[in-house]
């Protein structure tokens, strides 16, 4: 019977199955960071348990780490959390990319960079954006700390097989429209609950044409669509990306692995519980105006008005969001002025993201009154960008160039947006207070963020791109 990739990976990882129970699934890779792991390690210690497969774990520090003046951490509680991970990694024999280590970075950036992320693997991390790794055709999902403890001690998880969903993106993406716009358009169209309880496979011509980094941006935000996981069937693009990476198979083994990986792609004629379709050529650069990721619209449009919604609860959600965001109904998106620009996060901090932003700012200056900064996703992304001179382009334009980490994506370190101020951000969540109490977040692609930095308000980046051609 024709199977989709989700079924193939699931079925090959069932350790134990019994009617009336979830399946016991084997976990191939467990990624660990400092915020969601301390209580899990503490649980192991209290119960006198050990880590079953330290060789299948990899840890890094990202959420709390400062992005300037390393290695000083001013916040004593953050420092304690970071030191706790270092101690736990040592005690339990887990490889750690510590602060200042050449492999350090945001957990969802380094996994693929190091070749740890591979097609067909089951991958978990105490972090909802673990869905990012699905870009490789892996079954990757976020778990809570109790589940982190469960995986550490048993290398398995009890999971009920979720229904599957296909989101097909037909046709070709317009010039200047980014992967970020595809996923924001999907969420704007169907809402943040569309994927709830499902695992999504993204398919279609527009998805096939994406690079691995772009695919990661899409899968990353599956969780913003409510999905448990999102993935893309592997193809030659996937194989080419992995060749030569540190943890990827070597030589002959690589060829064998590649053959296996390609065999995982969804079969012709397979089925899904739900199928949704969207046309890529309908998608324009998107800016979110509200307090959840579905509250977004095309840059050429306006903030919605009450009359755009039928239900009372949607009208009141609009009012609440606009009050928090300090926006008026019907206001043109391009009239929204910003004070901050953040280019970073596990959604958009990879080399191609930085290149795309740099191509917009090159030779220009950040608008007066705007503070803009770039936080590369990993130490090695930063090094690669510097080798190409991207740091100079940003610095000359008036951006700050920082060390890697989660930074202002969630503002656990000192990178916080002040109350009442607005940030054009390439991250994934625009919840109230996400970037700082009272901070107003607008989610956009790296190129859109860069263009906003230059002009001081949102602009249609396609104008820049056509100028260049």
């Amino acid at each position, binding site marked *: 019977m024709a199977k989709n990739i989700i079924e193939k990976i699931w079925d090959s990882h069932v*350790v*134990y199955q019994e009617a*009336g*129970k*979830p399946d*016991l699934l*084997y976990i191939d890779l467990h990624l660990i960071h400092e*915020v*969601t792991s301390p*209580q899990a390690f*503490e649980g192991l210690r209290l*119960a006198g*348990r050990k880590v079953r497969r330290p060789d299948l774990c990899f840890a890094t520090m990202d*959420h709390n780490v400062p992005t300037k003046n390393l290695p000083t951490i001013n*916040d004593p*509680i*953050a420092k*304690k*959390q970071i030191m706790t991970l270092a101690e736990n990694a040592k005690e339990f024999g887990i490889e750690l990319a510590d602060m200042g280590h050449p492999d350090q970075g945001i957990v969802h950036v380094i996994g693929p960079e190091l070749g740890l992320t591979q097609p067909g693997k089951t991958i978990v991390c*105490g*972090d*909802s954006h673990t869905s990012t790794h699905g870009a490789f055709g892996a079954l990757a999902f*976020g*778990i*809570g*700390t*109790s*589940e982190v*403890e*469960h995986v550490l*001690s*048993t*290398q*398995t998880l*009890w999971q*009920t097989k*979720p229904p599957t969903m296909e989101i097909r993106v037909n046709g070709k993406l317009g010039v200047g429209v980014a992967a970020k716009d595809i996923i924001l358009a999907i969420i704007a169209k169907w809402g*943040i*609950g569309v994927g*709830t*309880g499902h695992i999504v496979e993204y398919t279609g011509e527009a998805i096939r044409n994406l690079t691995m980094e772009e695919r990661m941006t899409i899968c990353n935000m599956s*969780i913003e669509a*409510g999905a*448990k996981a999102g993935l893309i069937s592997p193809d030659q693009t996937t194989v080419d990306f992995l060749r030569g990476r540190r943890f990827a*198979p070597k030589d002959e*083994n690589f060829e064998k*692995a590649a053959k*296996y990986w390609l065999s995982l792609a969804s079969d012709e004629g397979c089925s899904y519980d739900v199928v949704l379709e969207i046309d890529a050529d309908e998608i324009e650069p998107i800016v979110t105006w509200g307090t*959840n990721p579905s509250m977004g619209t095309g840059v050429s449009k306006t903030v919605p008005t009450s009359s755009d919604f039928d239900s009372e*609860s949607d009208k009141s959600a609009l009012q609440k969001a606009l009050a928090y965001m300090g926006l008026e109904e019907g206001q043109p998106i391009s009239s929204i002025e910003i004070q901050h620009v953040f280019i970073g996060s596990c959604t958009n901090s990879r080399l191609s993201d930085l290149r795309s932003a740099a191509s917009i700012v090159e030779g220009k200056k950040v608008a007066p009154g705007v503070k803009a900064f770039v936080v590369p996703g990993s130490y090695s992304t930063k090094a690669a960008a510097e080798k190409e001179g991207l740091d100079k382009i940003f610095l000359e334009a008036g951006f700050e160039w920082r060390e890697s980490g989660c930074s202002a994506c*969630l*503002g*656990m370190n000192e990178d916080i947006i002040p*109350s009442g101020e607005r940030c054009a951000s390439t991250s994934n*969540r625009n*919840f*109230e*207070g*996400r970037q700082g*109490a009272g901070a107003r977040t607008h989610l956009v692609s790296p190129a859109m963020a860069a263009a906003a930095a230059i002009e001081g308000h949102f602009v249609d980046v396609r104008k820049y791109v056509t100028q260049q051609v």
Partner: protein
Amino acid sequence: MEPINIVNSVIAPLDRKNVDTDQIISKEFLKRIERTGFGRFLFYHWRFDEQGNEISDFVLNKPEYKNSQILVAQDNFGCGSSREHAPWAILDYGFRVVIAPSFADIFHNNCFKNGILPIKLTETECDEILAKGLKAPYDVEVNLEAQTVTGNDGKVYSFNIDPYYKQMLLNGWDEISLTFQYEDQIRAFEEKRVVY
């Protein structure tokens, strides 16, 4: 984990959709390395103003709901980040039950690992309970064994729950100990696992 079966309490009506884990527990409180003590930070920016004073018209600050053990909200409760600090805060604050039309997956899972009962009722039922609870304090009895929520007005709402998780909650089982019983199967799986 504390077993849970019957909970009698006034409901706390949190009439909001898409309550995300950033609101449940804000990032500035995630740096602690313990599991306990998060209750005082629950819904912090809704409960307290910038000076740390209680915002009196936020529902949890109203005296009639202060000792509630049952939180009722709208659709998609617990969306956003995977932080288990969210259920820890809910439990530590004193809630044992959360009722909503739907929950985000990771939050839903996290509840079961912490002895919190997440109950899915239909949107109409939740709207009805919220309306009652907002009008006047509404006392209900949650019975997990019977899978019912019974109001003091006699109204009975039934809910479905996965039988496996029901047993876990009723017995307060530690899932890891349960899984250790499958050691042979895990080892057998590892032996035939292909690694390139």
